[in-house]
């Protein structure tokens, strides 16, 4: 693999990480902690929204984030021909 390719591959990888970790931060520290009082004014079913994020929602999003990452990276590996045979 050439150096320019490696750089491009790595840049894309880092971009994915920034996107996913931003969401990671927003659902846990954002919705679950920093903005919890604001979100608690909204209720959905029996849940206050902030409370739900802090004790349920953020965890579901974490799982989704990892599988999105797996998917994106598998595609990226194939695109740059660095996947494992």
């Amino acid at each position: 693999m050439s150096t320019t390719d490696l750089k491009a591959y790595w840049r894309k990888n880092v971009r994915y990480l920034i996107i996913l970790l931003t969401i990671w931060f927003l659902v846990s520290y954002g919705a679950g902690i920093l903005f919890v009082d604001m979100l608690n004014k909204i209720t959905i079913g029996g849940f206050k929204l902030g409370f739900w994020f802090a004790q349920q929602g953020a965890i579901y999003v974490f799982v989704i984030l990892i599988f999105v990452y797996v998917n994106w990276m598998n595609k990226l590996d194939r695109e740059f021909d660095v996947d494992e045979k």
Partner: protein
Amino acid sequence: MDAQTWTFIIVGITFALYIGVAVWSRAGSTAEFYVAGGGVPPVLNGMATAADWMSAASFLSMAGLIAFMGYQGAQYLLGWTGGYVLLALLLAPYLRKFGKFTVPDFIGERYYSQTARITAVICALFISFTYVVGQMKGVGVAFSRFLEIPFETGVIIGVGIVFFYAVLGGMKGITYTQVAQYCVLIFAYLVPAIFISILMVGNPIPQIGLGGTLEDGTYLLTKLDQLCTDLGFAEYTSSHKGLVDLFFVSAALMLGTAGLPHVIVRFFTVPRVKDARKSAGWALIFIALLYTTAPAIAVFARTNLINTVSDKEYATLPVWFANWEKTGLLKFEDKNGDGRVQYYNDQNEAFSNEVAAPKGWQGNELTVDNDIMVLANPEIANLPGWVVGLVVAGGLAAALSTAAGLLLVISSSISHDLLKKNLMPQISEKAELRAARIAIAVAVVGAGYFGINPPGFVAQVVAWAFGLAAASFFPAIVMGIFSKRMNMQGAVSGMLVGLLFTGAYIIYFKYGAGDPEEYLFGISPEGIGTLGMLINFAVALTVSYLTPPPPTAVQELVESIRIPRGSGIAGSH
């Protein structure tokens, strides 16, 4: 059959199962002993990681902690799950590509320094030791409480079982036993939760039942908020303490999770880089199953508790109350001698003066241990005796699986990082394997001994293990992968400053004269690892830019771990 007979039978069957699995998966080489030969399928590795990760504390104590903390309990829920996102995205795939046996291996090679390796070994040993002693204690408690076997005998039985499969099978034996242990523990956790959810809100899924309605049509959570405020407690679902500390504690638990050596090493056992990524996802699914159920159990249990005991006559309480009183987990002290149980927040002065005093209440009369929320669940919900046995077997599975994973880290730190990589580089594969077996045998026995006679610092597992992992390993590994410019000088000084700062803060506030009033920015010792991590990053980056870049060979190593292709079985290159 009574609950105790059931407990004996179920615990006996599960132990026989673990031994059977161990005999079947004996390790023959160092690669099998340290990383299960690198051949564990990602889904099974996910299960093993989940069992490795969820300790006696997760299984027995967490739901109870949340029940009394309310919203604030989110720090454990977020902290002990969010770290897996960091693991999957920032660490696991690259460390798998690196393809060695241990975390100190990575630190030592990436920073081309024996000082760095030894610092990492000492941290790994200290973290794992603190952690494992707590697990052994948990095993003893479970035995003594349910089987009326003395505490010490309980610990010795636990030690015997772990000894057998860890010494024989190494990582291979441990991995497959952990898969079995995960199945036992999750089944044991979900069965009572599902029954109680059906009983209280008529929904078999506890995660949804948590937002359900009671028979009278009010939402469960609204009802619990009401019950809490009526007794002078803070509203269950609202934040009421400092969000800064909550933020820092959650972050320290996440970063610590991602930096704990016994968790990281699990990702060395899968065949390929893409399996390491996927495996972290599976691990989190299996963990989330328990972690999203726990808040539901917490709410069910707290509501049940208040409804059952609050201002009720002691003589009319259900049988389970008296049963649990015997164990000392529930304590009732009739302070005003009216024969009723007054359970309220006597720390709340306004409530004590305006509401409690006029009724003749003279202080809170009920003390409840955290562990009871999970343990007593089956009885509170009137479930059959075998469910009680199942819960005990689940608690033991959680404690044993975590202990085994930690013991492996201890033994590989000694036989691989210290002997092979430091003192005796000429040691043959066969001799190293023998040394690893001896090291794990000594570690198991040592853990058993300290489980019976725990040293004082072990009670602070959360502060120590997570604080140190967050302040030392996490930054060193992340920079080792993401910054080609990071050199030995930067990484070593960062780790040392991070460790000293975090360690000193914990010692000062946990064992010294420190008063919570003096907390830096209001951060408790449990959350200080986050600040330690930031300091580590800052010091490491500054020092590395003032000193020469790392050798070309190391820069090439970093480039090679960034791409998946070419990963062999761990240790084979």
